[in-house]
Structure formats: structure tokens, C-alpha cells
């Protein structure tokens, strides 16, 4: 294998026309060895693709997915209450559409990806009423998109507030309350599947970023007591595995809280994930803070700003913009780590899949199920990365103006 940096750069004439033969010769058959390698790999890839296609089309039993789709998506949530989750998805689709219209303004490719997410979410159940809801989500997302595009300035604050209140809204809608007659109580042990993973991710992101900012500022603080406590927290959390923290949150949190202060399993897992990723966020944001040149502080001080103003108006915005890609990576990491709640007994997508595979009807269909789960994680991770890219572009554009 040759390394690109080993060979001197070839100066190509920019005006020369693209020719397939030249491209092939340059990239695939540039010497005997590479030609051999290329041929062998083409053969192997062809063989693999053929095998996968034959398997997917013929021997794979995809009905394990279609029959258990609702279980995989929302766990054992009561069937007659599913409309509540649909309402959440509708709100989310509308919000995504609005945000897209306001900030990204959409081109064709972006629009396609914009709808991929609510649609992926919307596969909640393959029933008769399924298509109605799906069309509803699409229509709402589109309306949101056009409304957002029409009034980009005035809608910014309400949309941000709505995004922030999405968690309490979802928790209320899906969980209901004991007193309410319409929204009956559904205990959190009935929540599950993909919905749980997404909820945990969203909670983790929303809580760990502010906490991480506070910790990072604390770590950079000139007060030794504050600094040492923040360093202690960050280093301790980063030195232990997430599972032990989740486990501790399940077992120990009730011991440390006063009696009657009920905290259910899901909330404990949320606390564990948020506290854990806050430490990582803090380290990322600290990297951003350190990248801000000292002259920025001095200039702000010369303008007569106090400490709080300097940090919140001058240093922090620049630092956050500098580390957006890393923060997005960490968010994807949180999403991947939500699968660990399986080990503390919550029924997330992976643990539901175990229940499905334990059913003797679906013996030996593990490859189908795990391929489906892998695809789901891959799509959502890509979506998050895509959004992160967009946010970065926006932030850079904002900074330039």
C-alpha cells in the first residue's frame, strides 16, 4: 500500500477534461500491484454485495421487524394511548420544519434529509391509522418550513423556547398525570424502545451542555476553591465508566435523597447520563476557552466590562463556536451511550430487541433485528452530525457579520 504523502504531487492542468480512462489509470491501476489489488477487491466486494443482497431478498425474515415494529419503537406503551406519542412527533416535526425554515432555508437535498428524520420517527406502528399520522407529520413539517421561511426574524425566540420546553412537554404528554382524566398516567416502566433512546439523548444534551459550561468556567476560575472542586468532579467522572455511574445512580441516589422524594428509574438514568456527559462537555468547552487569546480578555477589560459580562458576551460565544464539531461528536456519543441503560434494566431499543429475540417465533432472526437497529443508530447519528454541520456554518456566518 502506498501512502499519498509519499509521492510528489502531480500538477494537473485544471483545463484538461475529465476522462474516465485517465481517472481509472490514476486512481485504480497506477502500477502492477495496485491493479492486482484493485481486481481482487472488486471481486471480493462484488461477492459480498451479492451475498448480502441474496440474503436480504431471499432468506432474511423481515417480518420480525414488521410485526414487532411498535415494540421496537415505543416498547410496551399502551396501544390506545399511542396517539400521545404521535402528538409529540407532530410537534417535533413542526419544530424541525420551523427551524429549518428559519435558519437553513433549505435546498432540495436538505429538504429530503429534513423529512427523513420525522419519517424515521413516524414509523411508530404499521396500523391502519399509521398513514394518516405520517401524512400529518409531513404536512405540519412543510407548513412549519414555509412559516419559518416567511417570518425568520420574529419566530426565533418562540422556536427556541419551544425546543427548550420539548422535554417537559413530551414527559407530560407521554406520562400524563394521575389527576388528569384525558391524559391518564402511564408509568415510565411502560416507556421504551427507540423513543426512550431519543428521549434520553435529548435530555442528556440539554442538561449536559449548560452544566458543562458552568464546570468549564469553574475550572478556569481564579478562585482556587471553586477550581479544585470543579477539577475534582470532572476528573473523577471521566475516570470511571458510564455504567458504574448509571448503576450508582440507580442504587445510591435513593439513599442520598430524603424519604418520600420519589425518583423513578428513568429519571435516575437521566440524572446519571447528564452528570456523566457534563464532565466530558466541560473538558471540550475548556479546550474552546483556552483557544481564546488573552488579548480578548484585556480588550474587554479595557472597555470596562466586568467579569460576568466578559465571559458571557465575549469569551463564551467564541469558545463555543470554536468547539461545535467536538460538541456534536459528544452528542452523538451520548446517543450511542443511551444503549447502556439496558444494563440497569430500562427497556431501550436494544433491550426490547432481546425480548423480541427471546420469542420462539422469531428464533434465529438476530441478524435482521440487529441490522435494523444498527441502521437506525446510523441514520440518527448522521442526522445529528448533519445538524451539527449546519449549526457550525450558521455560527461562522453569524461571526463574520
Amino acid at each position, binding site marked *: 500500500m502506498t501512502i499519498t*504523502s509519499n509521492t510528489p504531487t502531480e500538477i494537473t492542468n485544471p483545463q484538461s477534461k475529465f476522462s474516465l480512462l485517465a481517472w481509472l489509470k490514476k486512481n485504480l491501476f497506477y502500477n502492477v500491484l495496485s491493479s492486482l489489488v484493485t481486481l481482487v477487491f472488486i471481486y471480493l466486494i462484488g461477492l459480498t454485495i451479492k451475498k448480502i443482497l441474496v440474503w436480504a431478498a431471499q432468506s432474511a425474515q423481515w417480518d420480525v421487524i414488521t410485526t414487532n415494529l411498535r415494540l421496537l419503537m415505543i416498547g410496551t406503551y399502551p396501544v390506545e394511548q399511542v396517539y400521545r406519542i404521535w402528538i409529540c412527533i407532530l410537534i417535533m416535526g413542526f419544530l424541525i420544519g420551523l427551524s429549518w425554515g428559519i435558519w437553513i432555508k433549505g435546498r432540495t437535498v436538505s429538504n429530503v434529509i429534513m423529512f427523513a428524520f420525522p419519517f424515521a420517527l413516524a414509523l411508530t406502528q404499521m396500523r391502519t391509522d399509521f398513514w394518516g399520522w405520517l401524512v400529518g407529520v409531513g404536512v405540519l413539517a412543510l407548513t412549519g418550513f414555509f412559516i419559518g421561511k416567511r417570518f425568520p426574524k420574529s419566530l426565533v425566540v418562540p422556536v427556541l423556547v419551544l425546543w427548550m420546553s420539548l422535554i417537559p412537554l413530551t414527559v407530560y404528554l407521554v406520562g400524563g398525570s394521575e389527576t388528569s382524566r384525558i391524559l391518564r398516567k402511564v408509568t415510565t416502566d411502560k416507556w421504551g424502545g427507540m423513543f426512550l433512546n431519543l428521549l434520553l439523548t435529548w435530555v442528556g444534551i440539554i442538561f449536559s451542555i449548560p452544566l458543562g459550561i458552568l464546570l468549564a468556567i469553574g475550572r478556569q476560575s481564579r478562585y482556587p476553591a471553586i477550581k479544585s472542586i470543579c477539577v475534582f468532579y470532572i476528573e473523577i467522572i471521566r475516570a470511571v465508566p458510564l455504567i458504574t455511574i448509571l448503576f450508582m445512580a440507580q442504587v445510591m441516589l435513593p439513599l442520598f435523597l430524603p424519604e418520600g422524594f420519589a425518583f423513578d428509574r428513568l429519571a435516575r438514568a437521566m440524572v446519571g447520563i447528564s452528570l456523566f456527559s457534563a464532565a466530558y462537555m466541560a473538558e471540550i468547552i475548556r479546550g474552546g476557552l483556552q483557544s481564546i487569546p488573552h488579548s480578548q480578555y484585556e480588550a474587554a477589560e479595557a472597555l470596562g466590562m466586568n467579569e460576568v459580562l466578559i465571559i458571557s458576551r465575549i469569551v463564551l460565544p467564541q469558545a463555543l463556536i470554536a468547539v461545535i464539531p467536538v460538541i456534536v461528536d459528544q452528542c452523538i456519543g451520548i446517543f450511542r451511550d443511551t444503549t447502556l441503560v439496558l444494563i440497569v434494566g430500562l427497556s431501550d431499543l436494544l433491550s426490547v430487541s432481546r425480548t423480541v429475540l427471546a420469542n420462539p417465533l422469531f428464533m434465529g432472526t438476530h441478524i435482521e433485528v440487529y441490522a435494523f437497529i444498527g441502521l437506525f443508530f446510523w441514520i440518527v447519528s448522521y442526522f445529528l452530525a448533519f445538524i451539527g454541520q449546519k449549526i457550525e456554518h450558521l455560527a461562522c456566518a453569524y461571526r463574520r457579520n
Partner: protein
Amino acid sequence: MELKSSALFSKINKKRLSTLWRDERFITVMVQFIFVLLIVILCAFMLKNLQQTWRKQGSSLGFRFLTQNTGFEAAQTIIPITRTSPVYKTLLAGLVNTIYVSLLGIVFSTVLGIIIGIAYLSKNFLIRKLAWLYIEVFRNLPLLLIIIATYYMLIFSLPKFDSPVIWFDSIYLTNRGVRFPSLVSSKTTTAFILCLVILIVLMIWIGRVLSRKFEWDSFIVFMIGLGIFMGMAICTWNFFPIPPYSVSIPFREGFSYVGGEEQTPEFIALLVGLVVGTAPFIADIVRSGIANVPKGQTEVAQALGLSGYKTMRFIVFPQALRTMIPPLASNYLSLTKNTTLAAGVAFTELFGISRILINHTGRAIEIMGLSMVVYMILSLLTAGLMNLYNKKTQIAER
């Protein structure tokens, strides 16, 4: 007169009080005091609740249980664990397993990561895209999913116990595990290894003298040294009355397989998951490390007439290594921490054993606390070692 002075005094006092809030030193002390006070109050509140709960349950903190018997038998540990083993020894067995898995994982994932990272930089379009595909796919999959999927794959695709797949007449693959030939040590093993170590040290010393003082070609020195070493090793082997190692080949005996060494599907799934899941990150580090070495360096090396391999080995790689070490260290650390995901397939490493022990003894806080402290020590050790190495390479740069 008196009145006037007191009025003046109070004025000064007032001024002092108001300036106090603007005094840097006062603020420093006050802010920290309030912060620490808040933390202390929070801790005290939590501890008080803990005490109350404990009083109600009639239990308290204590580590005396560590010497009691566990009463369970753990399979697949390197240190054998029986029913009568004390708790601390069981925990130790878990720790040894953790270290074993993570060391193997680090070695294999580094090898795979380097291969893929270099493939990503290949001039061949196909290989480059394949490496890219691998990185993109496995980077976005949860590690736990990879481990569990591998486990089920092994369990379901390997044949049943009665009809094993046999490779080279000596490797038996069944869904209970993979049994392969192993080396069995004898009484003379330690002496043999000692001899080898002395021999290696001697060879390295002689080789250094030859290549540094007499300026022999290092390749020739290496080959001569290797030859002498092999010869001497064979002589030492024959010198012992009992051979230091014998090969044990597994075979079937009634309803079980004997001989050799067996690795369970749990262990293999964990290892494969860790390696496959960590390799993309390492590949990315290797790729960016090599790509970030300024192009002028390779050009100069080529102008000096160094071959492709020598450019890589002596010019590019050492410089790339310097930028690669810190992120590699953090990846190794996360690999070590990710061994806890074995809980998904019930392999008994430290966390798994802790969980079983908590069920047996009911001492959740103590055992979890202990294992967290152990993970912390492991992390700090790795971080410390990497820092040392980092410092060494940084100084060499000057």
C-alpha cells in the same frame, strides 16, 4: 469637637463598609467561602439522608465482608475462583480479567486501526473508500450493539456442541467456545524464560556496541544477532532435562473436549466488539496524524534519497506519533472503561463480578465504590504513563 470626630469616624467606617464589597481580596474570600459552604451543605444533607436510611435498614458501612466466602463459582476467570474464595479474591480475579481483555483489545485495535488508517491514505481509490466506509459505519454504531450482535452471531452461527467445525485438526469451534492448542509450562519454564531474557539483554548490548562503536550496518547486526539468539535458544531448550514447554492439542473425550485452551463466546464477543468499535477512532487518529506531517518533510526525505519505507519509518512516522499519542491515550482509556460493557453478554470482568457480588452480599455501595476506585486508578495510571511518554517525545523534538 468630640461630636465632630465621632461623625468623621462613622463616615470613614461607612466608606470602609462600602469599599469592602469592592475589595478584591474580600470578594475572593467571600465567593469561595459561599461556594464551599453550599457544597458542604449539600454533602451534609445527602449524608444525613444516607444515615437515616441506613438506620432504618439496620446496616452500615464496613469492609469486613471482604474476607467472607462468596459462595459462587465464577467461570472464565484467569485466577481460579471457587465457592470458598473470599470476596476480595473474587474481585481481584475480575480485575485481572479486565486488564487481560483491555490489553488484548488495545493491541488488536491498534493493529487494525493502523492498517485502516494507512489504507485511508492509500493512493488506490477503492481501498481508500473501503477504509472510509469502515470508519463511517462502525464509528456511529453503539459498542454494546456490536458486542451483543457478535455474541448472538457466534452463538447461532457456530455449530452445536456435538458437531464442531475443526480447523487444522486442532482448533474446535462450537457454540460453547473456541478450543485451540496451547503451550503448557513445566518445572523448567521459569529458568528457560530467565535464560532467554538474559540472552536478549546481552544481544541488545552487543548489537549496540557493534553498531555504535564499530559502525556496522544495523540491518546486518540485527540479522547476526537474531541468528545467534535462535541458535542459543535452541541449545538452552535442549539443555533442560524436561522441555520447558509442551504443546497441548485439544481432542474429544466422550462428552467433552480436553486439552488446549478454551475461550468462551462471551469473551470473544467482547474482544471483537471492543476491537472493531475502537479501531475506527484509532484509524482516524493515525490518518490525521500522518496527513498532518508537513509535505515538505517527505519531499526533503525523497530528495535525500530515502526509500519510501525509510521515509515513513524515520521521517514521517516519528513526527506523526507525537501528535497521535494524546488522543491515542484517551482512546485506550475509553477502551479500558468500555470493558464494562461485558455486562451485556455476562462475561465476568470487574464490573460483572461486582454486580454478582452485590447480589450475594447486598453491599452495593462498598463494592461499587471499590470497583470505581479501581477504574480510577487504572485511568490515572494509563494517563500518567502516557504523559511520561509524551514528555519524552516532546523533549526529543526541541
